């Protein structure tokens, strides 16, 4: 059952994932964490961190990782977890594939199409809301365990927002901070 659900959820994520990796996170969380409880908020946050730090698009990295973890949490052995990875990675790419094939036939019409640009008048502001929802869903007691968490959050926010610190460097620094603070 979990296999079919994973396939369905990731096809959906691939089909409705407008607005880039961060906006996609809210789609992933809504199903994978909140609805089906395949993984915890903590695990999800860890997966986002690792997906950020490793090469490749965050959408692929997280799909591969979540496919593995969800199957693992369901009690399957490692071989089946790898199969889970394959399934989610394949499923998230399949809609792209079909859409590109469909669009290639009438590419010149799709370009500068008035319906597409009108749809984006609504999609663009909604993307901001999707990213906000992704951040808000992560702000719970699993990720913010004490006042120190809030200090780390504030520092990380300022470093990224004002000083444009590279995400990988930020994650490394936060990890070191965690080691020191929770010694």
């Amino acid at each position, binding site marked *: 059952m979990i296999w079919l659900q994973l396939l369905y959820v990731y096809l959906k994520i691939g089909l409705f994932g407008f607005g880039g990796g961060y906006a996609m996170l809210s*789609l992933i969380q809504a199903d994978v964490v909140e609805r089906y409880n395949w993984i915890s908020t903590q695990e999800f946050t860890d997966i986002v961190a690792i997906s950020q730090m490793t090469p490749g698009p965050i959408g692929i990295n997280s799909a591969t990782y979540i496919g593995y973890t969800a199957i693992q949490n369901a009690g399957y052995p490692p071989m089946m977890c790898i199969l889970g990875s394959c399934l989610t990675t394949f499923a998230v790419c399949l809609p792209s594939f079909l859409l590109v094939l469909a669009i290639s036939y009438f590419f010149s019409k799709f370009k500068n199409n008035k319906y597409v640009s009108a749809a984006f008048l609504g999609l663009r502001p909604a993307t901001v809301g999707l990213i906000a929802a992704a951040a808000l869903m992560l702000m719970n007691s699993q990720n913010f365990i004490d006042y120190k968490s809030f200090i780390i959050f504030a520092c990380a926010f300022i470093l990224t927002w004002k000083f444009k610190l590279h995400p990988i460097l930020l994650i490394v620094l936060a990890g070191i901070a965690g080691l020191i603070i929770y010694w």
Partner: protein
Amino acid sequence: MYWTLFWTFLKIGTFTIGGGYAMLPLIQREVVDRGWLTKEDFIDLFSVAQSLPGIFAVNISIFVGYKLKKIKGGMVCAFGTVLPSFLIILTIALFFTQVQDNVWVEKIFKGLRPAVVALIAVPCLTTARSIKLTYKEMIIPVIAALLIWQLSVSPVYIILAAIIGGLIYGLKIKRH
């Protein structure tokens, strides 16, 4: 030809850290400088790939592959882009289960998690700024975020509503 395509996109998938747009200059260099596509074609592909759902890097690799070698080309390019991520993450996932209960790893991740939340919160603001969201339009993302966060409305419905809203506004209201 298929091997060249595969290797090119394997390289692109391996050497881009931090998401789709970071790989753009690399894709352009590989694809345009080899003479596979003209610069104009590439810019067209880019703008269409951007307006499609899904993973941007995958979309653009399928487009390029399809343009050169039809369906097989698209499959080869997508496979090349995805494979490095897949293998790297799989290795980490296999390894991470061994160490995730280690006290040191736990401490590191305790510090790391709030920072990840900040990493997602900032693009929310920078995106709002880059699309030049006005105060009046702010109501859209605020309602969208509250519906998802507090009422557990599926983001799929938000996206569908945004598309329909955009179509109505763009095609009917704005014209008058």
